[in-house]
């Protein structure tokens, strides 16, 4: 049974002197102090180095790509604003299409995945077709969302851009994994979740008030 004075001491509600006086006559606190010393020592092991060969090379390549790709972004902003009204028409259509295709993809996925996790050829073809349609619909939604993002303040824009960047990276990794193993239903489910997440994020972008 733990003594409440130890908790108070750890939360800074009891001074070190008071605690020292108390600990000499409390078995529970002595035990907890011993465990705490041990925990502190073992925590040191959590600082052991993690090896990640070629990580810097990957980061450098990514940064160079960003630096090259980013040129002219501000010039694009005014051009994108000219299309500002277009998304008003595109959004409802894209959202409706997305909902229909998304539901179909989810339905197909749920119906066709055998217990083994391996998809039969016909079902796989069907899912890939629905997936491509779903991805195209999301791309349309993304196009519609761009002018809205360009019009946001810098902080909001960077928040949404970062989130979409993370989702895109996950989608890309799933695509790579699926290229090696197209019948892996787990990765496909992971990709579907990422696509749904992207859809929801884009809808939030479009619903965001300036």
């Amino acid at each position, binding site marked *: 049974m*733990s003594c409440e004075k130890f*908790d108070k001491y*750890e*939360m*800074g509600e009891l001074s070190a002197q008071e605690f020292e006086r108390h600990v000499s006559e409390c078995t529970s606190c002595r*035990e*907890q102090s011993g*465990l*705490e010393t*041990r*925990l502190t020592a*073992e*925590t040191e*092991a*959590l*600082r*052991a*180095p*993690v090896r*990640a060969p070629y*990580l*810097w090379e*990957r*980061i*450098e390549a*990514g*940064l*160079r790509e*960003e*630096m090259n790709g980013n040129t002219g972004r501000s010039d694009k902003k005014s051009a994108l604003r000219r299309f500002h009204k277009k998304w008003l028409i595109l959004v409802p259509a894209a959202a409706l299409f997305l909902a229909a295709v998304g539901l179909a993809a989810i339905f197909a996925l749920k119906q066709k995945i055998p217990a083994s996790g391996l998809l039969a050829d016909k079902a796989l073809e069907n899912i890939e077709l629905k997936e491509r349609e779903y991805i195209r619909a999301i791309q349309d939604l993304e196009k519609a969302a761009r002018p809205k993002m360009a019009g946001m303040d*810098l*902080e909001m824009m*960077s928040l949404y*851009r*970062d*989130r979409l*960047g*993370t*989702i895109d*990276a*996950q989608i890309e*990794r799933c695509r790579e*994994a699926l290229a090696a193993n197209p019948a*892996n239903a*787990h*990765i496909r*489910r*992971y990709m*579907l*979740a*990422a696509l*749904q*997440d992207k859809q929801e994020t884009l809808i939030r972008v479009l619903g965001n008030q300036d």
Partner: protein
Amino acid sequence: MDRMEEDETIEACKRGDMAAYQRIYERYEQPLLRTACRMLRRQEDAEDAVQETFLKLHRGINGFRRGARFSTYLFRILLNTCYDVLRLRSKAGFEDLDADLLPHYSSHEAEHCLMEAVEALPRQMKACFLLFAVEEFTQDEVARILDISVGSVKVNVHRARQKLRAWLAVSLEGGKA
């Protein structure tokens, strides 16, 4: 890297100097990787999260205010990236990781024991403990990184320690048997 050197490096990053980004990488590689590994429990995802952190850093570095603490800023980006990945995983129903998606995780024996207990902590508790007890940020800094109150950091670290001590007591008892 002292504060002045860090300020100069950040200014160089703002000018798109790749060597400056590399200096930041060399300085923060291990704490970033360690934290990401423990948050995501999978080295491949952790490496992706660190890479993503640098890309986000590049996109946002012009907004970084001189005088603000850079490590706090960098870790905030990392933790948000980790949370995004965890949110996606949970959405896909992968709270725990599939073996085929998890090929690389390995660590030293002694570290691995405590690691299991740390990894079993709830997400925010784990983040508070790792940042405060392992990476040695102050409670104020942890609060800023995670965008929570200092009181919440205190409580989370306290509860994490309680749980880890209980785990330690049981594992020491098991060792005696």
